[in-house]
């Protein structure tokens, strides 16, 4: 995600580079606050909306907030790509592995096995 901003990467050894200004930070915080408000609104009107929409919406908002904090506050957008790659590696690994784990609990097909495919004789 931060890959596009290479021009922001420092070429000098000098300490750090163009940080966003404090004002940008405050702006970001306001965005975060608004997103949180939306989340809570969704929660309040949960019963008036389709369940799946609520769930999807909440998850989407969560991801967006995560991404904003990660890329601006944690500077991933401005830092070396190596860091983003490291972090995203851990993140994706965690998501994928645990997703598979949880689905193994869900899809365990207790009662209906496969149709008998008629085994070709492998003798």
């Amino acid at each position, binding site marked *: 995600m931060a890959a596009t901003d290479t021009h922001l990467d420092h070429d000098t050894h000098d300490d750090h580079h163009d940080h966003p200004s404090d004002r940008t930070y405050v702006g970001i915080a306001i965005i975060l606050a608004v997103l949180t408000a939306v989340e809570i609104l969704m929660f309040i009107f949960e019963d008036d909306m389709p369940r799946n929409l609520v769930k999807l919406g909440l998850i989407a908002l969560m991801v967006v907030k995560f991404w904003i904090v990660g890329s601006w506050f944690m500077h991933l957008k401005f830092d070396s790509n190596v860091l983003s790659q490291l972090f995203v590696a851990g993140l994706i690994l*965690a998501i994928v592995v645990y997703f598979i784990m949880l689905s193994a609990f869900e899809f365990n097909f207790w009662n209906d096995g496969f149709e008998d495919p008629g085994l070709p004789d492998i003798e």
Partner: protein
Amino acid sequence: MSDAVLTPDDVAGHDVAAHDDHGHHETNTGISNNKLAMWLFLSSDCLLFGALISTFLLYRTNISDNTVWEEPADVFDIPFTSLSSFILLMSSLTMVLALSAVNRDDQRNGRIWLLTTAFLGMVFIGGQVYEFTVFREEGLGFGTNTWTSAFFTLTGFHGVHVSVGILLLLGTVFGTRKSGLGKEKGETVELVGLYWHFVDIVWVIIFTVIYLIPIG
């Protein structure tokens, strides 16, 4: 001789020319060792919280043996938790402001923002302690059912992370009383900040997963 000989600072064995550029050692990645290590730690922590969150997801609906509630939402105090979540979220703002002040060599504001951040963190922890007490009073113990076990462990681990963060913030503020919190402390503050933001985004997930997303 001296330029051929590895110098003390050069444990890293990097390129000799970099020495003239004092104070900023060139590493292969251009990232300081400390920062790289911190990020490695954070990416490892993803798996840690991942395991806790998945355990919670697995046991999310398992509230057997429970005489206290119909569903968890009955005991949650969402406005309260929302507020404390919001406070934690905003502490991320004060944290970047602290870093930005330190990087400007603005020591006074740097300290103020760091202390604010720590304070907000403490408020959050206070809220969590309060919530735990309420739960206990309602009769929800650690071992009441798998839901409570998973809940207390997940939020508790997060609480421990926040508390460590508070110690780090306070350590930074008070540990530099003599030496000052000048620009050269930028990296220190940045590292504390990374940790702090991470703890914050973990809560973003926890808040949604535990409190907001409806069961069923």
